[in-house]
């Protein structure tokens, strides 16, 4: 088995084992791992330039907070945590804190493991809640809870992409796609659209998925001017039965495009409802 099928069924002992984190820095809050972390292989990603470097993940639930450790598995010895992501609901939104455990400052770790860490983190973060608030910390900065320092999902992904570019300037470049609301006003609340750009130019042929809770969606392909527009439909057939649907944000998702020598990283954009 690949580890996932049974991973969720194992009971996780909630105890402290700071030594297992391989981060021994007095005065700084240590990440908390269970005594016998239930490591599973990290899901693969075409964003990772060195898939031969073995990485693992372990998930721990602490009350309402979910903590996920990303660890590098050296040739011998135990896995070494390299990043930790904490996902916690707050009063207004979900807060996601990410810490790079091998970096002593905002600057990144330029080793192969450091680059792979950022690449896995990007892939991992992309699958998190696009409506959450994100912040990035490092080894010396255990907390990043200042509301003002938090980023949107797209901003955070952009930061990770920039950091990866900074630490790995000679690797295959990542192109960041950006989306902005379509210029023309929609005919109704179910009509959604974004303008897609890449390298500051309108991007033609980009696939964009739109989602509005609870389960409305549509998919569009951008035109030559970058406009991707479609009409939301309720995917469960409950059309018109959910009150206040038009007051819910719409998430636009660019699913990424990795082809030989060209990497367009996936990202999201939030279309907030009209006031």
């Amino acid at each position, binding site marked *: 088995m690949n580890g996932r099928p049974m991973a969720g*069924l194992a009971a996780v002992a909630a105890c402290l084992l700071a030594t297992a984190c391989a981060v021994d820095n007095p005065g700084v809050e240590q990440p908390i791992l269970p005594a016998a972390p239930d490591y599973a292989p990290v899901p693969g990603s*075409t964003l990772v330039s060195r898939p031969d470097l073995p990485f693992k993940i372990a998930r721990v639930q602490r*009350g309402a907070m979910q903590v996920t450790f990303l660890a590098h598995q050296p040739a011998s010895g135990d896995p070494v945590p390299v990043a930790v992501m904490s996902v916690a609901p707050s009063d207004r939104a979900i807060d996601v804190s990410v810490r790079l455990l091998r970096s002593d400052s905002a600057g990144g770790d330029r080793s192969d493991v450091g680059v792979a860490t950022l690449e896995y983190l990007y892939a991992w973060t992309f699958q998190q809640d696009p409506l959450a608030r994100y912040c990035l910390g490092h080894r010396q900065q255990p907390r990043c809870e200042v509301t003002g320092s938090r980023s949107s999902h797209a901003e955070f992904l952009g930061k990770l992409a920039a950091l990866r570019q900074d630490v790995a300037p000679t690797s295959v470049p990542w192109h960041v796609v950006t989306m902005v609301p379509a210029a023309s006003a929609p005919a109704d609340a179910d009509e959604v659209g974004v303008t897609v750009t890449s390298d500051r130019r309108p991007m033609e042929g980009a696939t964009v998925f739109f989602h509005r809770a609870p389960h409305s969606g549509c998919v569009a392909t951008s035109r030559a001017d970058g406009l991707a527009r479609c009409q939301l439909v309720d995917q469960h057939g409950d059309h018109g039965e959910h009150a206040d649907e038009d007051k819910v944000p719409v998430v636009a998702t660019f*699913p990424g495009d990795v082809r030989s020598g060209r990497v367009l990283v996936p990202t999201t954009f939030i279309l907030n409802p009209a006031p």
Partner: protein
Amino acid sequence: MSTKRNPLARSLTAALATTAMGLAVAQTQTDVHRDAATRNVGGDPFMTQYARAFYCNLPDDNNQIVIASRAWNNTTGTGANAQYRIPLTQIFDDVWFIGNHYVGQYLIKTPTGLVQVDAGNTANEVQTFNYPAMQTLGLSAAYPLTGVFLTHGHGDHDGGAKWLLDNLNARSTLGSADAAGKTYAPLTIDSTNLSMRQMNVGGKSFWILPTPGHTAGSTSAVLEVKDWGKTVRVLINGGQSMTNSVPQVAQYLDSIERTWSMASVLHVDGVMTPHIYWDGEGAKLNEINATGRTNPSQHVYGHENVLRQLAVARECSAAWLTRLDTTVVLPVWRFNTVEFTGGNPTPTQVSAKLQSGWGPTANQKVTFSVAETGASCTATTGADGVASCDVRPLRPHKDKLTVSFEGAANASFVELPASATALVCSNGNCNAK
């Protein structure tokens, strides 16, 4: 040779050209997983028509089948709308279905009262249909509705929960992540604890497994029912169908994988899905109402088919996630079967073939074992998927031989485990000693 080719030759040429064109275009990960879902069906037309089609509705760009099914969700049942209803139908010794062709509820008789799975669309629906059904099953002050298990918090599953609380004093149990704002004061299941555990719902023991994805508070369950006096374990899927949300679909995929594990560990044989169109239970209910309940019940799909269906669901989910996130790389789940070759095993022939929708599963270890004596041997499958070895002692007409494959995984594939058991015979045919 004539330049005028016959129709067969033209067709062959066209087919070859199409194939070449297909090969020239790189297969996307979504295509790979959709193809895997088809292969995991194993050629079963029933599973193709239902589970394969519905679980893959989005990656197949075929959501219209869900929308069309939704049109059957008529809750009045009067006049021409009567066609949408399914009458109270006994599916096991102690379980009855009631609902419409889109969504329904299950009524379970226990020694101390009734337990219901899901709560209908509306108060009017449960008052009009479920309440009289419960009375038929013996509902009284001494035999009450003791509890309601809600698969999730969508209105077509909990719309009648408040009526059941107000009129029958029956509390509903719901995943905590769906419980906010509910007016029927549900007892909650911790949706953040993803482990499988047992809990009591109205006096009935449920194995529960939070399975977020369809909703954040979706919960799947396994329970024991009686089928012609025999205990059978059945799966209640906590919620089917996906959205365009990447985190939700990622959760859904994880939930399907964990549901597969639960069904495997608990050796689930049957299904009780609220959305009966999804896996063909609606057709089974029609059959029961037309010709009667069979032995075993039509809702006993068999352990292999339950797991196969979940493997199909897993591949459909992977197909959709890889469409929404083209950078994620997911191994393909291959559903394996193993069967003894040449009929029943004999002391001189212990041989079995391991295969999947991709053909023979080669170079994998399988173990032959006899529970009664502890005798066993291990062999590796060849290119034809066949493995054989000697198990000693092996007593004809006494020992049952089990062949098992524990499963294997690499970055590209997960070979799912498989096993089979057969009585040892003297000549491969147990009916002719």
